[in-house]
């Protein structure tokens, strides 16, 4: 490995080193606050190391990894989300008094796994990254062991993720059998001359899609989502919703681009039916939920469906659309779960929709932030979510996919209902003087609120003036 390789890998190395360092700091019996602050610092360091990436893209670290602009973009999103989750976690875990320190080690490991996914160009690194991510998540989901739901969710995730990993491995093996390689580009080259997919390859790819589908929680592999979202501690839920999905989407996109999978109609048919089913089922199942975490879980199924719609055309615009939508979705979902985290109390997470009643009269600022996030998820203009959805619609109409664009529209109309339900709950029940509550951690509370306000500003900024982000997304585009 040359010096340049080290520079290119510096974010990954920093994340790895951070987890070890935090472990050592825990051994020194530092306080929770110090651990939190140092991990925050390390996250910031990892984030800024991305700016020193050599711009001669793409940089291959043979045979496993490639660091190109797209990878840098996705890593940036992932590390940024890790950073936000880290900030929001302090109050949440401090109140629970269950030895919250090791949490930060796991957070670094999971972020590392997702980053490896974003840079991988080989089945081995794909699998390694995925396993680092999921094994960390098992522990994170079940972290609050005194709570009934947490353990249940952890076990559920463990069983299903292990199950899907098996599928993934078997699929990889079949593809290896067919092509003799596990590297994306060589697989792509061996497919290059073929007019249609060989059956063995198709089977392998199908099994891989099952594995990936489980991680992405798209229909019909979505059963675990609601329970895990509900059971996991709220900051972890936001982590699952953003980081783990973003990494997987990135590697999926890279794989499809490299093997040029868009020209094989059975493959596209599979993706299309998954996308359509996810949009419809996700939105329909969310309608009757009374738990905000579950609503967001089902809505995430629908949103992953939207992302697949963006991915299906496989054009330049669709790569931009995926990147844009991911960025918008990350910011939005972090904001939404951030509000839930702040509102959670020692005993209960703020997950029942009733607990949002009259929030607007009690905490106007938090209610406005939450409304902005929900409107962005619903795709209403003035928010980033709208431009993202517009981008997706444009990408799919450009390629002539009218049908799935239409389903997307229907899906978002259904989706509107449950987002509005939360919003109207916040505005219902008038009067009520704002109570002055005693905050146990005023400084961190303030910091969290400031972070969430900044995210909201981003949501609105990208909704009103998206040119900057569009330029950015284009610059960091995956080369075809």
């Amino acid at each position, binding site marked *: 490995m040359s010096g340049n390789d080290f520079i290119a890998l510096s974010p990954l190395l920093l994340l790895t080193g951070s987890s070890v360092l935090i472990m050592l700091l825990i051994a020194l019996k530092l306080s929770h606050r110090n651990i939190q602050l140092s991990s925050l610092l390390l996250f910031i360091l990892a984030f800024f190391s991305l700016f020193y990436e050599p711009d001669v893209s793409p940089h291959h670290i043979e045979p496993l990894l490639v660091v190109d602009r797209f990878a840098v973009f996705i890593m940036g999103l992932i590390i940024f989300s890790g950073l936000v989750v880290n900030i929001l976690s302090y109050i949440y875990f401090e109140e629970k008094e269950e030895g919250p320190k090791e949490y930060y080690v796991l957070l670094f490991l999971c972020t590392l796994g997702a980053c490896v996914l974003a840079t991988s160009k080989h089945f081995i690194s794909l699998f390694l990254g995925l396993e680092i991510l999921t094994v960390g998540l098992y522990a994170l989901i079940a972290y609050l062991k005194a709570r009934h739901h947490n353990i249940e969710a952890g076990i559920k995730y463990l069983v299903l993720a292990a199950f899907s990993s098996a599928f993934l491995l078997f699929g990889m093996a079949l593809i290896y059998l067919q092509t003799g390689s596990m590297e994306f580009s060589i697989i792509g080259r061996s497919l290059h001359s073929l007019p249609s997919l060989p059956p063995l390859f198709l089977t392998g790819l199908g099994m891989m899609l099952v594995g990936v589908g489980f991680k992405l929680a798209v229909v019909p592999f979505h059963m675990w989502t609601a329970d895990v979202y509900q059971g996991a501690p709220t900051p972890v839920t936001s982590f699952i919703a953003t980081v783990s999905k973003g990494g997987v989407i990135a590697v999926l996109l890279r794989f499809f681009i490299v093997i040029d999978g868009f020209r094989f109609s059975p493959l596209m048919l599979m993706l299309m039916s998954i996308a359509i089913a996810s949009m419809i089922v996700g939105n329909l199942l969310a309608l009757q939920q009374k738990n905000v975490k579950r609503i967001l879980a089902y809505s995430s199924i629908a949103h992953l469906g939207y992302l697949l719609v963006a991915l299906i055309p496989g054009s330049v615009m669709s790569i931009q659309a995926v990147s844009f939508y991911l960025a918008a979705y990350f910011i939005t979902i972090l904001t939404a779960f951030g509000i839930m985290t702040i509102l959670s109390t020692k005993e209960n997470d703020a997950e029942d929709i009733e607990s949002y009643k009259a929030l607007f009269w009690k905490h106007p600022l938090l209610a406005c932030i939450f409304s902005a996030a929900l*409107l962005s998820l619903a795709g*209403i203009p*003035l928010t980033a979510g709208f431009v993202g959805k517009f981008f997706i619609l444009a990408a799919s*109409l450009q390629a002539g996919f009218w049908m799935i664009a239409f389903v997307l529209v229907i899906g978002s109309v259904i989706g509107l209902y449950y987002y*509005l339900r939360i919003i*109207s709950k916040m505005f219902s029940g008038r009067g009520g003087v704002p109570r002055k509550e005693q905050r146990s951690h005023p400084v961190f509370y303030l910091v969290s609120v400031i972070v969430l306000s900044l995210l909201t500003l981003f949501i609105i900024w990208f909704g009103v003036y998206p040119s900057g982000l569009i330029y950015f997304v284009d610059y960091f585009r995956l080369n075809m």
Partner: protein
Amino acid sequence: MILTYLIGILMGGGLLALLLGQWNKSLPKWIALGTVSIGFMLLVSFWIDQSHGVNIFLSETWMAEYRHDWIPAFGISFHLALDGLSLLLLVLTFFLGILAVLCSWNEVKERVGFYHFNLLWILAGISGVFIAMDLFLFYFFWEVMLIPMYFLIGIWGSEKREYAAYKFFIFTQASGLLMLLAILGIYFIHGSNTGNYTFNYFELLGTTISPDTAFWLMLGFMIAFVVKLPLVPFHSWLPDAHSEAPTAGSLILAGLLLKTGAYGILRFVLPLFPEAAQSVASWAMLLGVIGIIYGAILAYSQTDLKRLIAYTSVSHMGFVILGIFAFNELALQGVIMQLVTHAISTGALFIMAGMLKERLHTRDVRLMGGLWTQMPQMGGTAMLLAMASLGLPGLGNFIAEFLILLGAFKANVWLTVLATCGLIFSAIYSLWLIQQVFLGPKKTPDSVQDFSWREIILMASLILSIIWLGLYPQPVINTARPMINKLEKLFVNQSTNNKHVNNLHSTICIEHASSTASFSNTIKLV
């Protein structure tokens, strides 16, 4: 530049009201009143300048334009332009905006800042819709007016406000998304034809689209507009939203939001898809007539005062559709008159309903009666407004409906005959309303107050404008004429089977009609 200022002041004023509303309860009202009045004065002085200018009868239809790149990657620009139609509707927007602020002066007591923020942002969205000449920007403003309206109904409405707010939002949003699909469709078709990907209205105008595609794209636009208008099968959001909204909300809904639908058809559907529009013309006219009659019958059977007025809107908007799809100058002039006069007369009725509710704490017509003796001023005003609504000559609505019927008669005789029956129905429900509320035995024991000074000013301005429009509609007709002529030419050139309609002839006709009308009105008044 005046166009950006107009939207800018509204949005800025809204933010200011929101921020200052934290400290002071009455400041937001004054800020809102100030911003809307400044905008109104700017516009009126602009209008007067224009009408004294040289070129109002010439072919140049655009009076002001502003363009700035917004999202160049997609060919989206911040492009505003103003012609006669937009100008009229903008003046209307700001006029009703002032009244909306005034009529909620005492009604709103909590979250005053946020209330006025919403109010001003709705007005900003509506103004944007009327002047946006970029299809993306148009969609953007189209949606911008929804969210504050949703809050206005959902927070300050009456008992069933949440349900009404939902229904309103989902109906309009769903139809709006279909329009977005259609907008993207025409964007890509134009782009692949010419290689120039743009949302600019003027460049998209000449797009050649195959008839099948054009039909579907036209439907996408049409559905968004007829839901807003509303045309009969899509009207069910309207009575709920109107009756649950606070007074200012109902005023804006009836006076302005419905007009955006008609404006959209005139501005986008007809010029972008002339052939496709012609192919559905007879169906649209039929639905319009059904709307006229159905709305009137339902209005008669309501007991809730605001619902009753809401259904009269359905009936009156039926005339709009009938007129638009008659495709001739008379009818189109009538449509524009109808947009203006309906906004004023129905808006005034909603304000009146709000005042009654403030005094009696009910909207149920059955609980009212004999109010004239206690409130002669309000009774007289209501009488005049009801007369306007039923189309009494001398008041603006008569000119509008008369012109529409004249124009529609040329296009389709039998439907026009049916539509004329609608006038009889409207006389029935209007008179019934007056009889129930103001005449007959007195049902409320305690005494109620007549108009206050604020209310007198409110109502006087509305009544004066409706009488002015009835006696001297010429300024409105002149202002809209260049745009109407352009539209008509589109269809005269298009239609081969239609008899060639002489432009000059119809112009003379219209002046004749209006002068006859005003003449006969003057006689009646004397």
